């Protein structure tokens, strides 16, 4: 009988004992019980690193108006006001369809190009919970249409000759608040090569990243290296007279805008143009000053549904 008393007493007091535990500690234990996956956000400030795509997408229901400008080359001297007298530009619209899918269109003055792309987040960097990933991976496919007048209108020209494609994989990791890096294996295909020795298919590997200097300012760099791979014998692996694309710059965020100011040797702002058609040599001063302005508009309340489940 006496042996029984102890458990009974314990039962009686269990309620009380519980109550005397530190409430905060109990909350902590509760929150640890169901560890949720924590998805990494804001690896970069906007969906472009400088010339090319970053791992970021426009949020669902958000329209992102992008105006990009590249002035002339700074080594043109004071007669051209160090390039400010010339400019090429691209105006584009991006739209987030879902938390994973984004589409966009654009028009560049460079080669009078139209472009359209789809970008899909395959994997999102996350921590905690089951199946967390150390990196984010996205795939981007772009189709570009060059609409300059035909070089030789007398011969038979095919419309499809104007088209080129670029496919990229973006693998990114936000290492810390201050440091994010990504690599971008890329492939550009031209339906028509200009010369007999010009490649139709060009392979490149891009790398880039950012270092945050303050909450609203970051330093970015982006480099695309054309790889010496030519699938067809007797063809060059890169276009004649071109260089690898290098860009360095700053992201400045002010409320609804992101301003990107940078220096790059690339003139064009579509994948085919900066990866394969960069004619400037960065280290000889063929550098363009340029900027991208991004302004987002929330046009659909998809974001509300985003609130429920991420």
């Amino acid at each position, binding site marked *: 009988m006496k042996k029984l008393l102890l458990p009974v007493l314990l039962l009686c007091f269990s309620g009380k004992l519980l*109550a005397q535990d530190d*409430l*905060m500690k109990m909350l902590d234990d509760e*929150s640890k019980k169901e560890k949720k996956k924590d998805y990494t956000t804001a690896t970069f400030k906007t969906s472009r690193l400088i010339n090319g795509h970053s791992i970021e997408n426009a949020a669902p229901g958000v329209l992102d108006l992008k105006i990009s400008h590249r002035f002339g080359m700074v080594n043109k001297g004071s007669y051209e006001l160090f390039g400010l007298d010339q400019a090429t530009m691209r105006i584009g619209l991006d739209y987030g369809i879902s938390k994973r899918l984004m589409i966009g269109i654009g028009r560049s003055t460079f080669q009078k190009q139209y472009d359209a792309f789809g970008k899909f987040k395959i994997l999102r960097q996350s921590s905690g919970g089951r199946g967390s990933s150390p990196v984010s991976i996205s795939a981007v496919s772009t189709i570009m249409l060059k609409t300059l007048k035909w070089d030789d209108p007398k011969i038979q020209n095919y419309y499809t000759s104007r088209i080129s494609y670029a496919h990229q994989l973006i693998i990114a990791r936000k290492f810390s608040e201050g440091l994010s890096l990504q690599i971008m294996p890329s492939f550009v295909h031209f339906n028509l090569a200009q010369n007999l020795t010009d490649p139709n298919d060009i392979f490149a590997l891009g790398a880039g990243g950012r270092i945050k200097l303050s909450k609203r300012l970051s330093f970015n760099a982006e480099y695309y290296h054309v790889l010496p791979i030519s699938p067809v014998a007797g063809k060059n692996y890169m276009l004649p007279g071109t260089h690898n694309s290098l860009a360095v710059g700053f992201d400045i965020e002010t409320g609804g805008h992101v301003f990107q100011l940078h220096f790059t040797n690339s003139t064009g702002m579509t994948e085919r143009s900066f990866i394969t058609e960069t004619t400037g040599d960065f280290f000889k001063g063929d550098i363009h000053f340029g900027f991208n302005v991004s302004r987002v508009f929330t046009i659909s309340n998809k974001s509300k549904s985003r609130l429920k489940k991420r």
Partner: protein
Amino acid sequence: MKKTVFLFAAAFSITAAHAQNMQMTKTGKISFYSRAKSIDKVEADNNEVLSMLNPQNGELAFSVLIKGFHFESALMEEHFNENYLESSKYPKSTFKGKITNLSTINFTKDGVYPATVDGELTIHGVTQKVSAPGSVTVKGGKIAASAKLQVKLKDYNISIPSLVADKISEDIDVTVDCKYEPKS
């Protein structure tokens, strides 16, 4: 043997008679709203608030994940996490306090009881003493609590850059709403 059964039964009935068991919720709601002359509404909801209430001594605690606050504008949400609350550095906001007028609240009788809560609120890594008026509602044995308070951003080292100073008010209205269940 019969005695044992009886004793156990008695023991259980005693615990049950503590109808004032620890109360808990994982789906409490906290919303905030910034009064400012701006077209953009600065408001957000968090429906995953973890809270516990001990009706025996009036102790109350909250734990809120900053990333759990959702805005209508995705960009605003990003800036909230990145620039203002710095959620990767300070992922949680907590409150620990006590109902000061516990004697006037009868947790076993249906009714709406005004309540005042005193305690310590931690936001953005800064802890401040706060006191908030609210109410406790008892209905069919279920306990709910709500409160309204004003949070001054300055008190918690959250700075608003002058560029957006007219869009975000220094004082944020916070609403808390929790429906508790007895903790099993």
